[in-house]
């Protein structure tokens, strides 16, 4: 008998039985803060469940998702992946201070679906309106300029979409942005960096945006969606917001406030902008008596740019077609005498199934 073999048996036995004990005894959370999702619970035990194989499948999922110290193991995998010189881990990659997720390739059926929904809305509600269209590039567009990570051809996507949106005037904004206009750890853009974008859009829509704001800090340790997905140790972001008298006086329906500070302690602090994703939010600006109304069809990026435009309108109605069907809009939104803006990110357009 070799002593080294005995050592090995003892070591590995302690490991396996130790891990078994840990998995059985550990009390693990049913929600993952880093992944922002509910984790699998212990499966239902019934004869039917067992015979169908559902119990086994669900237990396997439970065993993985509720393994103790899940985030630690995910971190080990992430760092091992980096040690193996892999450029991405589950599609998540880092360039400089940025963490991002690969968006590739262009999904033409999804672009078609998005265009179909927007065309349907236009045909049904916007025949007498000025309609505009803007595409917000996700930050991969800019990160791809300094890396060889796979990225879609944004020009091609833009050309394809504008070809499908002939009823709308296209507003180009990509040239006003770069990677640092986005949070390092999140997909979204920084509100304090997109004033020029808001000015160009409102300018093209016939309204001059003066843009006098004060910058305030809302959150100094914002861990964006990509940070959790990456499982890496990373410097969190700071959320800043722009405020002025107009924003302070604005009245909001469908959200708690323009800047909903209660969201800063929730799972996604970015939702402080207009309380996150809501089907319909109405912002009324009684300081503006021009009677102009804007209907903004948007995704989550729209939540942070809409406050900057309040001063140009008496009323802005934000519509999120992921949470309300376009068929029902007429019951909730008055489209008369309003300008319409479709403003979506490339990530939404490329994965537009939720639009209805």
């Amino acid at each position, binding site marked *: *008998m*070799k002593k*080294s*073999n*005995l*050592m*090995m*048996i003892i*070591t*590995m036995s302690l*490991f*396996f*039985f130790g*891990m*078994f004990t840990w*998995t059985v005894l550990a009390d693990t959370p049913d929600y993952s803060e880093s992944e922002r999702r509910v984790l699998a619970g212990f499966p239902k035990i019934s004869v039917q469940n*067992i*015979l*169908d*194989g559902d119990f*086994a499948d669900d*237990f*396997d999922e439970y*065993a*993985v998702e509720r*393994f103790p110290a*899940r985030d630690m*193991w*995910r*971190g*080990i*995998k*992430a760092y*091992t992946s980096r040690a*193996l*010189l*892999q*450029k*991405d881990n*589950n599609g998540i990659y880092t360039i400089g201070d940025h963490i991002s997720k690969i968006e*590739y*390739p262009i999904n033409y059926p999804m672009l078609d679906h998005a265009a179909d929904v927007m065309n349907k809305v236009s045909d049904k509600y916007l025949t007498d309106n000025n309609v505009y269209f803007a595409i917000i590039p996700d930050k991969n567009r800019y990160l791809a300029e300094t890396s*060889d*990570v*796979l990225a879609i051809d944004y020009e091609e996507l833009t050309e394809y979409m504008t070809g499908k949106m002939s009823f709308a005037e296209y507003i180009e904004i990509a040239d006003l942005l770069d990677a640092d206009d986005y949070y390092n750890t999140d997909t979204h853009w920084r509100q304090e960096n997109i004033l020029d974008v808001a000015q160009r859009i409102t300018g093209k829509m016939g309204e001059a945006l003066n843009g006098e704001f004060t910058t305030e800090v809302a959150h100094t340790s914002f861990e964006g969606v990509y940070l959790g997905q990456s*499982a890496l140790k990373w410097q969190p972001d700071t959320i800043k917001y722009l405020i002025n008298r107009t924003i302070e006086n604005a009245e909001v329906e469908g959200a708690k406030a323009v800047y909903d500070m209660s969201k800063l302690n929730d799972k996604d602090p970015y939702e402080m902008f207009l309380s996150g994703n809501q089907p319909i939010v109405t912002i009324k600006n009684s300081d503006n008596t021009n009677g102009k109304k804007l209907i903004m069809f948007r995704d989550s990026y729209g939540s942070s740019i809409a406050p900057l435009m309040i001063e140009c309108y008496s009323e802005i109605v934000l519509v999120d077609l992921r949470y309300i069907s376009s068929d029902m809009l007429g019951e909730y939104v008055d489209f008369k005498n309003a300008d319409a803006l479709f403003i979506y990110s490339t990530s939404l357009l490329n994965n537009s199934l939720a639009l209805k």
Partner: protein
Amino acid sequence: MLFSSITFLYYFLPITIIAYFLTPARYRNGTLLLASIIFYAWGEPKIVFYMILTIIVNYALGQLMEKSSRYKKIWLLISVLFCLGSLGYFKYADFFIENINAVTGLSIPLLKVGLPVGISFYTFQILSYTVDVYRGRVKAQKSLIKLATYISMFPQLIAGPIVRYQDVESKLDNRNYNVDAIAEGIRRFVYGLAKKVLIANILGELCADFRTAEEISVVFYWVYAVSFALQIYFDFSGYSDMAIGLGKILGFEFMENFNYPFISKSITEFWRRWHISLGSWFRDYVYIPLGGSKGTMARTYLNILVVWMLTGFWHGAAWNFLLWGLYFAVLLLMEKKFLLKVLENRTIVGHVYVLFAAAISFVIFNGESLAQIATDFSGMFGFSGLPLVSLETVYYLKNYATVLVVAIVGATPLVKNFVCRYEKLKLIEPAVLLGLMVVITAYLIDGSFNPFLYFRF
């Protein structure tokens, strides 16, 4: 249940090992049998009853063959018909129905019966037992528990190696345990698990990326061919290592199933190193009974063709597997006729020829259809008008370069020879194994990609 799963590693295995070694020796077969039934039922809660029935039927037929030897042939025939009939029903019925419909224009409805996990493995294992009893090579096992333990033992139940009854017969009665054997078992198991999770699964992701790529290129096709060949090798040999390792821990010695096939200098040699238990099964139970190479040259060639078509068909009920078998039959016939003489003393040529032939073979093996295989070959050999290389190809090559290099080196005996040369490396082995288990666990928790390719069989 997969070996490479949290459920197996940190629930089933510790409980089973504790229960097994706490059980008095004379009842250990019962514990192993119970654990094996649970193991199989985990993935096949209904089909487990079929497996139990098959064991009982063939146990009875084995007894009958010994007690009533006048009708031995009949009992053997019943065993063969039962086993192959069941295999045919579960695995091949819809293939034949589809092809009959295609040829005749009929619309016979498909049976749509799910393929039970591991059925091809344990069916062949059962048949090897009943044939060996018929031939008088082994005595029929009197204990149903022992026979059931042999057929169903979880280390090799669903993915081999195909264990011969004579190799474990004495161990069913009496098993000795020693520290060195158990340590070797642990070693084999962990290295096998690492091969599966840290190499095969990652290469599998590369192959999946290839299939969904936007900008394929000629180089990408070859990267795919090489990657899939390595994936299936590490997947299957890793699983075999785990099976052999678990067997050793439990007191059994299973045959080796892989012996660095990619260092072969001929396809004849390749098939002595790849899935050895299957090759030897077909040799002993099909090729030799057909006459082997004892008859005329024409008869020998026919036997080789039959065996290899069946070998291909064993792997799957689809035309690409038949084509795969035929492909190897042609190469083996060519080698038998003249090619082996040509390759003699041409080592480098032999190595290049085998690597090329193996890469081509696995493209056929992994083709979803004959049309896809044609597309793949067209792409590989530059007939599709594809560019030589693309940005996407370069990205994925960079992404997987380290793992590919590790896989290529690991597919040769270089690492083993290096470790054997330096005895002192054994001192750090526990730390290495622990480190591997930590990383493996991390990959299992964070990854969702964990297929086992040979589960189709």
